[in-house]
């Protein structure tokens, strides 16, 4: 069962009761110490007190060294040198890891060298390393979609039991539990991120009386408010063109049409999931038994057409916006009213100096659709339960993986896993998901709302933020990311064709057919039968 706020609080209350009764004296001391530690680290620097710095990351890393010290002697890894490959997006990810691991290096004596990659360069660098047998890193920051490429080829080291205990692996939210992080029944990944697109919107826009009046005056029957379906998102986007909010041009939804190394495809996926992911069908990208692409079915074509229709109502240069632009240069800077994004927007809006909208953001699961395409019947269904929602569990989160090449060296193996365990530690992870880091909530223990409030988050804000994620993770009709080899090649091919569609060179159906044809070719190139098997496994079929 997925722990929710109620069960977590119930558990905490029981533990407290046991502690006060003296029945579990040592346990209560430990629990109290851990609670104190969590309270202490979440005050570094404290929400609203400026963006965290390297000094903060080091301080947090130092305070969270307890589990490492419990299992590793001081200086035990002296002479061990490890190489770590990961991202440097927004000056986060690897840069944070450096700070967190500095105290670990000082304590254990190990040294880490860093390979930093931009998001768009990640996939090719990793693919080349795998294909050419030149894995030149011992620890790897990697998303679950690549597990087919890495774990499937035996390049990762299996997680030792002591690491499972140290990181409290059972604390992960359900949707990130096996098969995610595992391959052929073996566990490989220390999860450090959730990842799921939620819906971010401007509360001031959707509570503005002047806009509400204009909306009514335009003859709309419904009340002015936050869109709940993609049909409403389209209507609002078209309505806002030419309107003003706080003396600035108002815009509705912000699409991200510019390619982004395959990662931009998720944003079309977020528009498409409500149309394409039927509650009676686990698949939505490919047919399960044949890997026949669905990208050119009426649902996906409708999503693509939505983008085409919305672009004239978005900022003039939107064709050149990638997700980075929509999230960080537009939405956080006050341009646009609605975007889908991973959890970063919520943290950065409130806890970074780069945001001007920290007090006026609201969150929800992705919009739904009044009808959903049924691939089995070829019909559009209206559900009795109302609009179809299908949160896009895009990317399944980043994790830390240790490479098999350390397996032959016991000391190095232990050092690499210790570093991974430190980064994926339960307390450290709370800080990571609370502040701008590139990571979002992924443990049941992250949903203790009071911890966030104590750190400085507004109760209403954080409730909206965390609920949008929890509801996405637990949604029965969530759209799950396929963990199949070459997934980013599929996405990249699609991105290229989509730019042609969005620029008006081909229509939505023709472009979608082109993508489907190229995907078919790619599936044959990679190996259809194997892809079918892995696709089924990733959907739990």
């Amino acid at each position, binding site marked *: 069962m997925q722990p929710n706020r109620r069960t977590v609080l119930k558990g905490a209350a029981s533990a407290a009761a046991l502690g006060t009764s003296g029945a579990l004296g040592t346990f209560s001391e430990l629990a109290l110490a851990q609670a104190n530690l969590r309270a202490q680290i979440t005050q570094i620097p404290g929400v609203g007190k400026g963006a965290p710095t390297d000094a903060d990351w080091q301080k947090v890393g130092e305070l969270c060294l307890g589990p490492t010290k419990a299992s590793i002697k001081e200086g035990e890894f002296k002479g061990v040198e490890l190489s770590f490959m990961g991202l440097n997006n927004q000056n986060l990810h690897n840069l944070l890891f450096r700070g967190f691991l500095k105290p670990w290096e000082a304590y254990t004596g190990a040294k880490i060298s860093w390979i930093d990659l931009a998001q768009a360069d990640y996939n090719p660098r990793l693919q080349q390393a795998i294909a050419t047998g030149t894995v030149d890193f011992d620890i790897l920051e990697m998303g679950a979609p690549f597990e087919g490429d890495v774990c499937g080829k035996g390049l990762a080291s299996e997680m030792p039991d002591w690491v499972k205990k140290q990181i409290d692996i059972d604390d992960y939210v359900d949707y990130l539990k096996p098969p995610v992080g595992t391959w052929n029944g073996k566990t490989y990944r220390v999860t450090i991120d959730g990842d799921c697109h939620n819906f971010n919107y401007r509360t001031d826009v959707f509570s503005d009386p002047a806009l509400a009046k204009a909306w009514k005056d335009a003859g709309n029957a419904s009340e002015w408010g936050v869109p709940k379906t993609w049909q409403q998102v389209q209507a609002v986007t078209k309505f806002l063109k030419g309107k003003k909010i706080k003396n600035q041009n108002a815009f509705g939804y912000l699409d991200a049409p510019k390619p982004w190394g395959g990662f931009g495809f998720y944003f079309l996926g977020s528009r498409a999931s409500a149309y394409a992911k039927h509650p009676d069908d686990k698949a939505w990208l490919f047919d399960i038994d044949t890997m026949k692409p669905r990208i050119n079915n009426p649902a996906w074509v409708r999503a693509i057409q939505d983008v085409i229709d919305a672009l004239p109502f978005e900022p*003039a240069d939107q064709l050149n916006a990638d997700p980075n632009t929509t999230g960080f240069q537009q939405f956080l800077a006050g341009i646009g009213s609605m975007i889908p994004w991973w959890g970063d927007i919520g943290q950065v809006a409130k806890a970074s100096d780069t945001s001007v909208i920290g007090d006026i953001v609201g969150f929800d699961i992705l919009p739904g659709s009044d009808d959903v395409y049924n691939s089995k019947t070829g019909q559009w269904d209206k559900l009795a339960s109302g609009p179809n929602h299908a949160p896009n569990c895009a990317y399944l989160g980043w994790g830390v993986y240790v490479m098999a090449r350390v397996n032959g060296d016991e000391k190095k193996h232990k050092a690499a896993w210790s570093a991974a365990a430190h980064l994926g530690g339960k307390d450290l992870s709370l800080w990571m998901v609370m502040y701008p880091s590139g990571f979002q909530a992924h443990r049941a223990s992250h949903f203790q709302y009071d911890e966030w409030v104590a750190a400085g988050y507004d109760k209403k804000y954080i409730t909206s933020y965390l609920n949008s994620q929890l509801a996405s993770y637990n949604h029965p009709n969530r759209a799950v990311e396929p963990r199949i080899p*070459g997934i980013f*090649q599929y996405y990249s091919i699609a991105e*290229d064709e989509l730019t042609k569609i969005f*620029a008006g060179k081909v229509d939505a159906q023709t472009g979608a057919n082109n993508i489907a044809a190229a995907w078919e070719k*790619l599936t044959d190139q990679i*190996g259809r039968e194997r892809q079918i098997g892995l696709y089924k496994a990733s959907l739990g079929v």
Partner: protein
Amino acid sequence: MQNSVPVSDDLHHQPATKRAPRSRKAAGRALVLLASLGFLLVVFIQVLHTTGTISAGFSDWRPILIAYLVWAVAFGVGQVLTRGERGQRALFLLPAVFFTVAVVIFPTIFGIYIASLDWNLSSIEGPRFSGFDNLKGMLNDTYYWNALGNMVFYTVAVLGEYAIAFGLALLLSAEIRARKFFRVVFLLPMMLSPVAVSWMIGKSLLEYRFGPAATLARYLGWDNPAFFASPWMARLSIQAMDAWVSIPFIMIILLAGLQAMPKEVQEAAKVDGANGWQSFWHVTFPIMLPVSITVLIIRIIFKLKLADIVINVTAGGPGGATDTVSSFIYRVYRDRSNVGYGTALAMVYLLLIIVLLTLMLRLSKRWTQKVE
């Protein structure tokens, strides 16, 4: 008058070539033959191994390189044995020849081999021989032809760059005030890397919302100054950025040519009553033609490699409007991990460039001969 006395010139003295004895010749030929057969055998085994015909072979292509080096040494020794001192002299050339083979010919052959493979980095089976499939795929690839079409635009635009650069070179060769200062200023863009330029201009100066160029354009009445939103505007903007970095290079070469030009010729034209335009068109331009052709060919070679600005600013968009062959090949490798196809595209492009430049050189030779 001095008597001419024969002077001994040791430096330029050419001793009579000694012919090698017949037995040494035979040994030399045998050595070269054996080494060549050995080298071909290693290559043959490796090809059979790679195509899966035999299990014996090497895990990578490094032994081929080693076999080549062994063959090179044997070939050198064989030359000395066969040709005697003439062979020894040839040895001075051999390092350059072997180096060229190692870094040009060998990679080209290897590239042709890779181009014949169906090799996706995610494929569990690894590379598979596919013959001409990649070339067939290229013929049907609309992205490739689109990029090639864009290259025609970018290449023709070099003429515009040349015209501007010539104008600037004439200006800076004239007796104007602060000439040295302007020479330095005009050269500055050349010192910037294209990546820096793509950020400075593409993502700052021409940025739609805050960029100074966009602000100025709005002030002048252009409502939505999106420099990269429409295909033609985006193509022109990319071309302008690339020209900004490259015009100084063309200018400095032309300026050097102008500086080297004999002043008397122009003065003679002046005496004959030629005006400024006539003097330029009938005197300066023809004299500068060899320099111009050289710099244009160099510039076209650079232009055909245009990729970094495109990748950074537009990623080839909107809708492929700014895509270049190099940026497309980069995406095929980088985003699609399609090594075989990417290499096939690169090899064909290389061939196209060689053919194009050969034609240009021939045409330019004829043209300069006519002018002369």
